């Protein structure tokens, strides 16, 4: 395929003039690439709100006792930090941004199956997000339940829980519609010759993710509606004083919210599976194993929710069974890691920024994953349950995993998205600062948690001061690195050198079309290779 810039009619999707002009041309766009960017800008904005809330907590915890805020304010801040980061950043994150942009391109399609539904998903995402942020500012005060909204406290506290849970419900609806759209797209719009097992691995991961979004989200939806009804009408679904069962809430909540963890991490693994073959110039090792392990994670992931509830009062049988299943779900994750490592073996490794992020993803994901096993086994869980250890574990998975994969993805694909290249040196420096800051921020929390520092506490004993201080300093280093990274990316996207169509010598379809792509991605029918990672 020839480079598109030589063609007369080539207009990039960024310059394409549709029915509407200016900003309306974006808000009313049905082009999957524009919708992806809308998601990216809004998610980035919410991410920085979440970061600021996180930093406020770190300042508060830098010294024992009250530092900059009252305990109730702290409760509100960790709740809203959680709600924003979980429901508005990491759950939609990779699939709504890079999934929207690259899924159709990677399978050789012109758009997703339902472009208007896709636009509608973004609209309700924004509505839900506004509701969630607004809950912070209502007169009744920000919700103080934690992002999990555990009953019966959430049914009795006077804060604006109803608005926050409604926000989560609306955001869930957006997530369902995106998942639905992706499943149908993958089934219907693959280019001729692209069989399921010719698909690149990012679409595979998105496919597994989409099924989780579709099947798990309705459960949390109805649970949150029940919670709202309970608050409004005094129905006792979950309040033991009214005959209800708080454990029931926890079960229903985690039936969704554990699979939701895989909504966060599966697309991240997909991104890594794209980046590693490109920067080692080698065919991916164990293609089928990686593809199918995504489905295995999605499937088994539905059955492990009980490991959040070992100390809540479940029967002994239920506990060992959930523990067993938790260990089982670690197997497909490990399969992926081993295959990535095997792909690198004897590859011509090129340490460019996307690959640096991908490598640190693997490193952090292994720490997060193995500490997850510590939490998954019943005996050790009881020691560290609800401590800073848990906080460290899930930040290693969610931020170290999904977050670093997001950064890897943006460094990998931004030349394709904007047609311009960022500065490598600055990108590497920002990566170094982020990596150091991240580990300083979260690693001490493993130790603190082991020593008994509970999570979500506003105050602590003087013996935890050292670790907390290191953690707080790490938080600021991390934030500095994030700032430098974003600055470099923005500068690159606006003023960077013009990027060639295939700067990394990648083999998948997105590198065969001009950067930035045209409105309909492909001017001529894409040619499908037997294996998407063919470097021979």
């Amino acid at each position, binding site marked *: 395929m020839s480079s598109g810039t030589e063609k007369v009619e080539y207009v990039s999707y960024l310059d394409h003039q549709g029915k509407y002009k200016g900003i309306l041309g974006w808000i009313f766009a049905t082009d999957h690439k524009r919708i992806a960017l809308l998601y990216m800008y809004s998610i980035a904005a919410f991410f920085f709100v979440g970061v600021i809330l996180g930093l406020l907590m770190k300042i508060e915890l830098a010294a024992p006792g009250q530092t900059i805020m009252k305990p109730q304010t702290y409760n509100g801040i960790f709740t809203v930090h959680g709600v924003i980061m979980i429901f508005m950043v990491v759950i939609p994150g990779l699939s709504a941004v890079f999934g929207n942009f690259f899924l159709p391109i990677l399978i050789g399609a012109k758009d997703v199956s339902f472009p208007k539904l896709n636009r509608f998903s973004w609209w309700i995402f924004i509505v839900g997000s506004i509701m969630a942020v607004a809950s912070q500012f209502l007169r009744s005060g920000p919700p103080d339940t934690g992002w999990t909204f555990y009953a019966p406290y959430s049914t009795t506290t006077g804060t604006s829980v109803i608005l926050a849970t409604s926000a989560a419900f609306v955001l869930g609806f957006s997530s369902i519609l995106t998942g639905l759209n992706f499943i149908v797209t993958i089934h219907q719009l693959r280019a001729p010759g692209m069989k399921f097992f010719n698909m690149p691995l990012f679409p595979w991961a998105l496919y597994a993710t989409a099924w989780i979004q579709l099947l798990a989200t309705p459960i949390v939806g109805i649970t949150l509606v029940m919670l709202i009804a309970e608050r409004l009408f005094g129905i006792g679904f979950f309040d033991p004083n009214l005959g209800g069962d708080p454990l*029931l809430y926890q079960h229903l909540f985690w039936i969704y919210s554990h699979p939701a963890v895989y909504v966060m991490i599966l697309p991240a693994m997909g991104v890594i599976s794209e980046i590693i073959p490109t920067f080692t110039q080698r065919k991916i090792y164990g293609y089928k194993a990686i593809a199918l392990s995504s489905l295995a994670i999605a499937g088994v992931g539905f059955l492990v929710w009980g490991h959040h509830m070992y100390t809540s009062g479940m029967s002994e049988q239920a506990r060992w069974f959930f523990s067993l299943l938790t260990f089982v779900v670690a197997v497909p994750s490990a399969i992926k890691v081993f295959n990535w490592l095997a792909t690198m073996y004897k590859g011509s490794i090129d340490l460019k920024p996307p690959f640096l992020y991908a490598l640190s993803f693997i490193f952090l994901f292994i720490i997060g994953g193995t500490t997850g096993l510590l939490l998954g086994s019943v005996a050790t869980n009881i020691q560290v349950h609800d401590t800073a250890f848990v906080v460290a574990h899930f930040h290693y998975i969610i931020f170290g995993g999904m977050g670093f994969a997001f950064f890897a993805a943006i460094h990998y694909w931004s030349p394709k998205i904007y047609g311009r290249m960022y500065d490598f040196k600055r990108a590497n420096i920002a990566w170094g600062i982020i990596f150091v800051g991240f580990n300083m921020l979260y690693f001490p929390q493993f130790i603190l948690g082991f020593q008994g520092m509970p999570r979500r506490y506003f105050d602590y004993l003087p013996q935890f001061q050292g670790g907390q201080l290191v953690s707080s300093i790490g938080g600021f280093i991390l934030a500095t690195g994030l700032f430098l990274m974003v600055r470099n990316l923005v500068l690159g996207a606006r003023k960077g050198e013009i990027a060639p169509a295939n700067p990394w010598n990648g083999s998948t379809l997105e590198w065969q079309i001009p950067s930035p792509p045209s409105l309909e991605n492909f001017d001529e029918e894409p040619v499908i290779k037997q294996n998407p990672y063919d470097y021979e």
Partner: protein
Amino acid sequence: MSEKHNHVEEHRDDEASKLGMWLFIFTELLLFGGLFIVYSIFRHEYYQAFRESSLELSVTIGAINTIALLFSSMTVAMALTAMQKNDKKTALIMIGITLLMALVFLVNKYFEWGHKIEHGLYPGSALMPLLDRGHLLYFSLYFFMTGLHAFHIIVGMVLLFICLFKVKNGSIHPEKYALLENGALYWHLVDLIWIFLFPLMYLIS
């Protein structure tokens, strides 16, 4: 493999829209699935109270509603077949009957609920907190589940109304009836959920 299309805006794929509808139906089933779990747990815990409370419901009205919905499921399927056979008039009549049956269902529901509300048996009433826990949960679940179902009936009616107009003005025609097909699918879902609700709420004694 999918058919090729020339332009994003003119894109049309009936196969895709049907698949999308089925997936959406899965999510609806899981939405109610969550409620059925809650129902079964509390029914297990408060078996006696659930039995007693269900005696308060009128099996006759429930049965009439069941028949109305089953009948409407049949008529909407007939409307679809008529459309496929290019019989516009029959299709219109059948959609009309479906909507009428839906209305019958809602009117019945209105009287049924009104009767309960008269006796103070509704979530948030002064009487409810005085009941014992099992009765309270039964009636709360009754209103919650039938309420959510009634909401789906209304959504389904809106969908079928749109179909009615589109059949009338010819934008649904024998070559393009995906919307009517999806409306009918949704209507079958609404019917199906009621088929489960009816025995669980009315017939357990």
